[in-house]
């Protein structure tokens, strides 16, 4: 299954996926829109957010990163916030993809996309999803610096 945690029969559509390999966020959104989203002509607004790995954090050069997660709970939590967004705003569909495993600078970490008829809902819901994801979804970053590795403690 391409979208293993998709629930496309519950009113508002939501899809969440944990990805162990690198992904091209623009290709993912484009593919999703063309092959999964069944709403051509219905949405006037698409808001997309991509979080990607920076080569510096808290003043230190970062060489690599390992993203750990709690399998099962992450998907459950991302689905939960996706459905909550669908209840709070008039959206048509949403997609979240989050990387785990070993990453390098420039690699995409997270993709959030929201489709809606009008722009306010897409803007609001995409931001809500990112804020909720960052504050509560069980992912943890460990950075590799030239001097060794460290767990990231602040998620600003």
């Amino acid at each position, binding site marked *: 299954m391409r979208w293993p945690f998709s629930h496309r029969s519950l009113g508002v559509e939501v899809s969440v996926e944990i990805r162990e390999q690198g992904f091209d966020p623009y290709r993912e959104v484009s593919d999703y829109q063309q092959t999964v989203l069944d709403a051509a002509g219905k949405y006037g607004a698409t808001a997309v957010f991509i979080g990607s790995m920076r080569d510096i954090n808290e003043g230190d050069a970062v060489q690599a990163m390992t993203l750990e997660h709690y399998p099962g709970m992450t998907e459950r939590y991302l689905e939960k916030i996706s459905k909550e967004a669908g209840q709070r705003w008039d959206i048509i569909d949403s997609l979240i993809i989050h990387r785990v495993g070993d990453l390098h600078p420039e690699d995409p*970490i997270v993709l959030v996309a929201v489709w809606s008829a009008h722009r306010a809902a897409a803007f609001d819901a995409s931001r809500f999803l990112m804020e909720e994801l960052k504050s509560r979804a*069980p992912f*943890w970053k460990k950075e590799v610096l030239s001097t060794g590795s460290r767990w990231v403690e602040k998620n600003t």
Partner: protein
Amino acid sequence: MTIAVKFFASLREQVGKADITLDSQTVSSVSDVWKLASGGQPMPANTLMAVNMDYVDAMHTVTEGDEVAFFPPVTGG
């Protein structure tokens, strides 16, 4: 009562365990689970707890077959 316990990230490294299965008649709260599973280590103040993948607090009552997880503040996205 059988309880599956998981530790993640820095807490996993600190406790030195990833997964442990408890079989105890004396645990009743998540806090009790921590004490037994961690070997009596103090719980860091910012520890997050989940039972069956839902967030709970330390006073939450555990029941047979629960999966209890302990982890530090999340840093995804």
